C-alpha cells in the first residue's frame, strides 16, 4: 500500500470484511436449506424455474463497471425483497407443514434473520459513505404493480425454490461486490467506485 488507511477507509474495509463473512455463511446455509427444501417439498432439484415476479435477479451485465454506490443500492434492494419473500415463505410453510417439517421452518426463520442482518449491514455501509439510505416505502412505490394473487400450493413451492436459488446467487454476488468495495483506491485510499458515484 502506498499510504496508511484513513479511519473511514479502515472502517469500510472492516465492514466489508464482516459483510463478506456474513454473506459466505448465508450462502452455505441457503445451499443446505435448498437441499432440505427440495426433498421435503417433493421437488426435482434440477427443475428449471422461470423468473418469478418479485424475486430480484442476481444476474447482471457489466458487473465490473458498476460503481460502489450502485453495488450497495442493488444489494440493499435485493435483500429487502428477500426479507419480505422469506417472511411470506415462512408464513406459507407454517400453514402447510405439520410438526414433522418444523426443521424446515426453523431453517427458514434462521435464514430470514441472516438476510435481515445483512440488509442492515448494507445500510451501515451506505451511511458510512454519507449516502442516503432509501426508505423501504419508497422502494415499494417504485416497484410497480401490486403483489400477484395468492398462488396454488405447487406454485408456492416452485416460487420458494426460485427464491432460495436466487438468494444463493445473490450471496455469491454480494461477496464479490464487497470485495470490490474493500479494495483500496491507489490514489485516494478510498474504495473504488464510491468516490466517483454521484
Amino acid at each position, binding site marked *: 500500500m502506498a499510504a496508511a488507511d484513513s479511519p473511514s477507509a479502515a472502517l469500510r474495509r472492516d465492514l466489508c470484511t464482516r459483510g463478506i463473512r456474513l454473506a*459466505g455463511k448465508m*450462502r452455505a446455509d441457503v445451499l443446505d436449506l435448498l437441499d432440505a427444501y427440495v426433498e421435503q417439498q417433493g421437488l426435482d432439484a434440477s427443475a*428449471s424455474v422461470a423468473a418469478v415476479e418479485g424475486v430480484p*435477479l*442476481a*444476474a*447482471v*451485465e457489466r*458487473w*465490473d463497471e458498476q460503481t460502489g454506490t450502485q453495488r450497495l443500492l442493488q444489494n440493499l434492494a435485493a435483500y429487502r425483497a428477500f426479507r419480505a419473500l422469506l417472511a411470506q415463505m415462512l408464513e406459507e410453510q407454517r400453514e402447510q407443514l405439520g410438526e414433522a417439517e418444523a426443521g424446515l421452518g426453523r431453517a427458514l426463520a434462521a435464514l430470514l434473520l441472516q438476510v435481515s442482518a445483512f440488509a442492515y449491514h448494507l445500510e451501515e455501509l451506505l451511511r458510512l459513505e454519507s449516502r442516503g439510505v432509501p426508505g423501504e416505502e419508497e422502494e415499494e412505490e417504485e416497484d410497480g404493480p401490486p403483489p400477484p394473487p395468492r398462488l396454488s400450493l405447487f406454485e408456492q413451492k416452485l416460487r420458494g425454490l426460485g427464491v432460495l*436459488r*436466487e438468494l444463493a*446467487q*445473490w450471496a*455469491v*454476488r454480494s*461477496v*464479490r461486490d464487497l*470485495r*470490490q468495495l474493500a*479494495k483500496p483506491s491507489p490514489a485516494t485510499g478510498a474504495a473504488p467506485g464510491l468516490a466517483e458515484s454521484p
Partner: protein
Amino acid sequence: IEMLFPPPPPPPLNLLLWLPVMGCDGCPGEGEGTAGPDVPNLSSEGWTSGQKNPPDVYEKLGTPQGLWTGGEMANPVRSACCVVLAAVVVVYAQRHSQPDSHIQYERVGADVTMKCGSMDWDAAVTWTANGTRDMDESHLNGSYLILKNVDLSQSGQYSCYEGSSWHLKYQTYLRVGTPPKEPVLMCRSNNYPKGFYCSWHLPTPTYIPNYFNISVIHGTKDMVCEKDATPKNRCHIRYLQLFSTVKYKVTLTVTNALGKNFTTLTFDEFAIVKPDPPESVVAKPVPNNPRRLEVSWQNPSSWPDPESFPLKFFLRYRPLILDQWQHVELSDGTSHTITDAYAGKEYIIQVAAKDNDIGTWSDWSVAVHATPWTEEPKHLTTEAQITETTSASTSSFMAPPTTKICDKGAMVGSGAMAVCWTAGLVVAAYSILFI
C-alpha cells in the same frame, strides 16, 4: 479424319464457342462411383438448353458424327479448314484433358463398385491403384472395379485406363473411414469471470475429414463461441452476464461424408469454474529445522483477477517412502510451512487451487521434491584414523542403519556422546518407521 481421330462422344452443337470441359460441373455428386465425361454427356446429365436436338442438326448439316460446326459455310475450302481445325482442337482436348479427380468416401466393410467413367460395361479397361498395376481380374466385373468389404488399407487413388489407348478415363481417390461417434465435449472456466471455453474430440478416429459445429445458448439467447487459434478443437465465450441462474446449453455437432453425430452439455455459470493449477511451486528446507519445509507458489497466470476473485489452495505432501498424503487447506496466502516432516526424508509436494466461493478444484500442480534440513554429516572414520586425530567435533550426524553408529572407543571430543544419542534416536525412529 475419322481414321486418324476416333470419334469422340457427341459434343454440343456450339463446340467452337465452348472450351473443352476441364472441370466436372455437371457430374454426379461424390460418392456415387461415377464420374463425368470429358464433355457433358447430354443423355445422362439431363442437361438442357435452347439448342435443337443434335441428331436433327447432324442430319441437316451432314457432318460426320461427333463433329459439329455452327452456321452455314460460304466457301468449301474454308469449310474444310474449319472442320480440320475443329477436329484437331477436339482431339487435342481429348488427349490432354484429364478426367476430373473425385474423392469417394466409403465405410469400412462396405462393398464398393467403381465405374470407369462413361465407358460401357464391356469396354476393355485397366484399373490401377496408387499408380501400380495391381488390380487383378478378380476385382473386375466387366469394366467395373469391385472392392468387397473395404478396409482402411484400401484407401488410395484408383485410375481407369481405356484398354488399347491407355487413355485415362476416370480417376478417384477412395477414402475408407467411419461415421463419427458421439463426440466428447468439455466446457470449463479457468479465467472466471471473463468467460469459459469448450473443447472437444472424437473418441475414435474416423480416418476421413470431420467438421464440427458448436452452438451455445443462454436461456433464449444465442452466443458466439469464438474459435481459438490453437488448439483447433476449442472455442471460447465471453460472459455477458454474471451470477445468472439460467443454464448454458452447448451443442456440438460433428459431420463427415459418412454420417453425423452430436452431444449436448447443460450447466450453470458456477459449476464449470475450475482454475488452472498453481504455478512456480517451490519447496525449500528451513535452516536448522530438520522437520520443516517451506512451500510457496503463485496463482495460475490464467486467473485474471485474484484480488477480486481470490483462490484458496489445497496442499498435499508425503515422504517418497510412504503412500499416504497429508493434506492442508489454506484459505489465503500463497505459502505454507510444513512442520511435521520426517527428518531427512525426501518429500513430494503438490498444490491445487479453487475459487474461494464457487466451482471445483484445479488439477494438482507439477510435483516438487524437497528434503528437510539436516546437519552436515561427519566423515565416518575407522578406529585407527580416529586415534591419530585429536580435534574435537561438536556436530552430530545421521548414519545409515547399516553403519556402525556408536563406538565409544573410536570417538573423541566433547560431542561424541551427543553423536551417539542422536544416532541411537535415529535408529529407533527408523525401526518404528519400518515396523
